[in-house]
């Protein structure tokens, strides 16, 4: 008998009750969500009292099964500082997390800011929120020479109006339930001088097959890495989960404390050994004597609030289609706004991959097939353009110079996967889209254990790389800045103008603790 849903992966005991549920599930059975961005105003050191209070109304959901409602929590470095985490623990996090997303060199790499100015891919006036991470010590001397130069550059202090110390995600069955729950949360946090400084209503609106569409109208969240680990991962039915040939990644790419793609235990944070930490359930760290493993079964959560210009997107597609029709009246009957939009995305609106002459047929579960490579099927991008969003976001074996290198390049690409847990916010645009002044977009969230090698790499080396796949002077058509995009066709490629359709309104890096670490933070 054929199952109606494909088997999914889950964590084996004890990791299932040690890991936040958000890691294994996007909570698709709970269509309504709220993202509450918390700030510890008032006291210099808040400790964990507020978290204990919160735990009474919104305990963090673990990963052992379906829940009536669900909560997830994550902290910025600035937040952990304010909660009074010991210095040795704070310093044991990786550099990107310690510096925050809004460090000047980092912002340049991921395409947000250059030479002291926000780029077009950021909302006018600059982002609204971040962790406002304090700079680490300034640049002083160089090893081996006494002082720096007369023209030494002083690193910029980049601040946003709103400071976010923690992110609370709530998932419920309906709007009213969610609103009520939020009120409860606000009420218990207020006495601890923890306030909700920003919030977003998250929607899922999945169709009958469980597929949700983003605001431009395309099925989203289809391609995800599938973790494997002999000790810690199984299939939903309990069977062993072998490595998926196309999308398999070691569990350590997503959770600290497990083997990662670089053949080591994914390094996470530690805390000095003490009875409180032991009581919370933290285990001795395998490498650092005298420290407990704060990272085990936790992860980094990258969050970016992305606003989408739905009207502008379809307007641009219409203008391009009209232009192409005018320049090529005889050969362009197939070029419609939807046809162009599908090329920019790389899938059709239902989520099926574009292929030469059509699209990839659905898999055995009547869902978009995600088990494919590009090299054999569509090397030059006559179906799914090389510069399309899906191909840039996960090139699979695209970049292989010859057939013998396909597997190498696929393996290489899988060393940079991220597990996406984003949801859209804002009421859907009308059909056809019309300007309505509503802020809508995607609260992009992804999990990874090595921010530089995973999230930042995808952003810089694939999505925003002007030379990706031997293209020239173009970036991601969907989320990149204004520019052009090449669509290969025979005999001659077409080029379309794209605008900046997606703008970042805030973001930062968060630590998504495992449940022992969560209990430890509560005990601070």
């Amino acid at each position, binding site marked *: 008998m054929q199952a109606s849903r494909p088997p999914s992966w889950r964590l084996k005991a004890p990791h299932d009750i040690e890991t936040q549920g958000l890691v294994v599930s996007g909570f698709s059975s709970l269509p309504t969500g709220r993202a509450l961005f918390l700030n510890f105003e008032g006291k210099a050191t808040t400790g964990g009292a507020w978290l204990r209070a919160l735990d009474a109304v919104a305990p963090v959901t673990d990963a052992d099964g379906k829940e009536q409602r669900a909560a997830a929590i994550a902290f910025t470095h600035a937040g952990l500082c304010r909660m009074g985490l010991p210095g040795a623990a704070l310093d044991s996090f990786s550099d990107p997390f310690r510096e925050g997303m809004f460090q000047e*060199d980092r912002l*340049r*790499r991921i395409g947000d800011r*250059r*030479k002291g100015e926000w780029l077009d891919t950021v909302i006018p006036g600059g982002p609204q929120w971040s962790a406002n991470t304090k700079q*680490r*010590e300034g*640049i*002083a*001397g*160089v*090893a*081996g*020479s*006494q*002082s*720096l*130069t*007369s*023209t*030494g*550059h002083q*690193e910029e202090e980049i601040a946003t109006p709103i400071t976010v110390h923690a992110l609370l995600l709530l998932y419920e069955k309906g709007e009213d339930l969610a609103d009520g729950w939020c009120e409860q949360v606000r009420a218990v946090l207020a006495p601890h001088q923890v306030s909700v400084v920003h919030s977003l209503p998250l929607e899922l609106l999945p169709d009958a097959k469980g597929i949700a569409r983003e605001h431009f109208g395309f099925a989203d969240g289809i391609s995800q890495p599938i973790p494997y680990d002999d000790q810690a991962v199984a299939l939903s039915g309990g069977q062993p989960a072998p490595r998926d040939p196309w999308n398999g990644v070691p569990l350590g790419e997503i959770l600290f404390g497990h083997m990662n*793609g*670089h*053949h080591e235990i994914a*390094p996470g944070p530690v805390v000095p050994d003490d009875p409180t930490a032991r009581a919370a359930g933290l285990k001795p760290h395998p490498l650092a004597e005298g420290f407990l493993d704060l990272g085990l079964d936790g992860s980094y959560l990258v969050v970016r609030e992305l606003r989408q210009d739905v009207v502008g997107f379809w307007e641009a597609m219409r203008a391009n289609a009209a232009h192409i029709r*005018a*320049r*090529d*009246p*005889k*050969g362009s009957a197939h070029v419609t706004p939807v046809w162009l939009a599908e090329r920019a995305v790389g899938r059709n609106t239902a989520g099926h991959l574009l292929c030469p002459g059509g699209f990839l047929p659905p898999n055995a579960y009547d869902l978009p097939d995600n088990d494919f490579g590009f090299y054999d099927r569509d090397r*030059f991008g006559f179906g799914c353009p090389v510069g399309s969003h899906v191909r840039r976001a996960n090139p699979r074996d695209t970049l292989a*110079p*010859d057939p013998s*290198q396909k597997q*190498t*390049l696929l*393996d*290489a690409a899988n*060393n940079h996967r991220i597990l996406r847990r984003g949801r859209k916010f804002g009421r859907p645009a009308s059909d056809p889209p019309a300007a309505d002044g509503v802020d809508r977009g995607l609260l992009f969230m992804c999990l990874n254990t*090595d921010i*530089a*090698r995973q999230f*930042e*790499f995808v952003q*810089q*080396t694939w999505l925003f*790389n*002007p*030379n990706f796949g*031997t293209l*020239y002077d173009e970036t991601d058509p969907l989320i990149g800045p204004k520019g052009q995009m090449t669509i*290969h066709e*025979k*005999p*001659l*490629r077409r*080029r379309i103008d794209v605008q900046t359709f997606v703008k970042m309104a805030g973001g930062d890096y968060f630590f998504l603790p495992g449940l022992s670490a969560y209990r430890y933070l509560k005990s601070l």
Partner: protein
Amino acid sequence: LEVKPASSAVLAALIDRLHDRGNGPAKDGQEDYAWFMQGVPCVHFLSMSIFPAADYDPLFLVEANFDGPPGPFWGQVEAAFGEVLRDMLRCCKRPLDADGALFDAVTAPDSRAPVAPYMEARTQRPSVFHHGNRGMTRDRILAERDLFVAIRTELATANSGGESPYRSMLPRQIHAGLRAALLRDRPWLAERAPVRLPYLTRLADLARLAVFAVLLVLGLSLPGLLLAPVMATPRYLILLGLAILLALAALYALRDPLPGTDTGGKTNLLGVIFSLRTLVIGGLAILLYLLTTALVTLLASLATGVLLREAWPGAERVALLGLASLPFSVLAIIAWLRWLELQDSSQDQPPVDENMIRQMAQREDWIPQNHMGSIVPLKPGILRSLVVHLGHLGLGLVLKVLPDSGVRGYLGSMRTVHFAHWAFMNNGSRLLFFSNFDQSWESYLDDFIEKAHVGLTLAWGCGVGFPPTRFLIQDGASHGRKFKSWARHSMAISRFWYSAYPDLTVDQIERNNRIANGLRKPALAAKEAEAWLNDL
């Protein structure tokens, strides 16, 4: 150039000021380097960095990749930079060798002696060199970029506003139409494409490798060559057989990875040695060696008057018995190396200076290309020294000869390196590496880890503190994060760095070249034209 430690801060400031002169007050905009671009028309990439070290005084290194002879190049650099170059040299130590006099002349107060000859005299050629677009001069790269952009414009604007003439054409006609349109401003399109790698260059590459191979075979047969004259053949063969068995046994005993360091890589040294390619190359080398022996015997017999007929049997016996010991030498060396590997200390967490890292980050990722320079101390020991020096020489020669790397510019499956150098410093105790590459440092290193870890482990595995290796090429760089932090800690800040074509990747230069070469042809066949259009 060795720096006077007390002057290194001043030198750093001088370089930074040069950097800022290029960049204007803001830190970007490669176009601002126009003065340098025009002043030094043959340069591809140029970098200046100071390498501080715990065990040595700082080194000031100028890395230059340019077309043509060095004399005029340094003259142009001096003219473009002006007196600052002299000021920089004043921060450096007087060399201990014969160049000292020249140094004095150049750095004397109020000296007007040209600096260029001194720079030329102090130039050290790299021991291994890799060029991504071999045979492409800077002018050609720039002209072909201009052509690429012009084609884009022509296709987008022909018959402006109205119907595009190209859309209703067959591939062959599109080619012809574009050629006609672009030829007007570019008479060079009518000329035949200059050959990028002349036949003679390729032949010379091959000849150098052949000489190296013959000498290597000679070196590896030394045990047999020495023993054969003093031992009877059967005894010698028995001894050899036992020795080979012993070496094999040692290898078998040492084969396992150190606990926790296995990365499951599929390529291993024995696999490489017994691959068809190596066996064919090895067979050719042995054949060459035998030919050389015959030739040497002939020459010797001519010189000494001994008849060839009498000399040959003896010479042949020695040569063959010598060759018979080659497997033993190879196996014994591998076993010895393996034994060393098992005792090696690897540095899991190299000390990194946060300020240095910050300053590197500040200068990185402004354009889609980046630069790195690193110096690592080499592992001690006679075998290691031999292997690293010979290995380097061999690797460099092989890279040039193999079509993938020598002609098409690939290292493994990656083609992101414009120019890379290796060179030995400080009497061969340290290894310098410079690279001008596409994309970010992170992605470049990840490329190495994921796509070229075998070659990289071979090239850098001799560095002190490198992650644990197995049989010279396994594991090593596959320990990705450890390798990255090891590489990062060996790097210096690239204080001044210039690229003549900051927007072009190696791939794009090749693409432009394919397009230009196609457009130089008066007409293309239908199939050819279709493939050509695919590049536009």
